[in-house]
């Protein structure tokens, strides 16, 4: 069902103002949340994560870009997000990609940035593993 729904998604014209871009972010978040039960079924994630945890992970990734105020940049980020969502729903990724990016990725990033004794090389190494 989510696969058929995402097939009809087309690239929208650029947002006219900040309010329209904000509205589209919420629409994208809603679309992503409604696809999560299908993602759980496709990748068999029932024993490692729940739908609410995946939803929190998606929300935290959107919140990482909360500082962006340019509607053009928001449109570009939305396009990349929709592309990523389509890749996930079409099973263009493997199970460990989903687990690495959305289940354990946050914890590793948080633990890496909180340790002040870690060298810059290791910080960049940890970051590139999950981006």
């Amino acid at each position, binding site marked *: 069902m989510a696969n058929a729904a995402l097939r009809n998604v087309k690239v929208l014209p650029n947002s006219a103002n900040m309010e329209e871009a904000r509205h589209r972010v919420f629409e994208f978040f*809603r679309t992503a949340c409604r696809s999560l039960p299908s993602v759980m079924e496709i990748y068999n994630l029932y024993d490692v*994560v729940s739908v*609410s945890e995946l939803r929190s992970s998606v929300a935290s990734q959107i919140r990482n870009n909360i500082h962006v105020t340019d509607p053009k940049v928001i449109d570009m980020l939305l396009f990349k997000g929709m592309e990523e969502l389509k890749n996930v729903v079409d099973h263009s990724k493997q199970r460990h990609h989903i687990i690495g990016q959305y289940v354990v990725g946050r914890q590793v990033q948080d633990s890496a940035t909180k340790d002040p004794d870690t060298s810059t090389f290791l910080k960049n190494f940890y970051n590139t593993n999950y981006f």
Partner: protein
Amino acid sequence: MASVSATSLSFQPSLKLSTRTSQGCYKTSSLEVVSVGWNRRTFPSLRSSRFCICAVKAQPETVQKVCNIVRKQLALPAESELTPDTKFSALGADSLDTVEIVMGLEEEFGITVEEDGSQNISTVQEAADLIEKLVQDKSGAS
């Protein structure tokens, strides 16, 4: 990898019976149908003309469930006060948190909240009222 188990609540069918027999019921010939998926609408059945729609007040059990979901989503402590008139913004929720709460409520109650419906939700009571209305519409349309 440690696995987590989520507690699932079931919607008691007796609530529907009490809803139908409670005061404030009125019959209506036009039924507001909930959209499912992408622009797909379910047509009301012949029994929709006899479907009783209650007033906007939600059941106390629904309000309690909404409070539990809001508390879990916003990671509030158990002793924090959460009344039906509490605003989500007063609890420190931004607009994305509100959308996330609405998506959590959708998953819990098995409904689909349209955009114009979710735009107006800012308190627990409004969310519970909308959920009660959508649950009745869903049960009435089937």
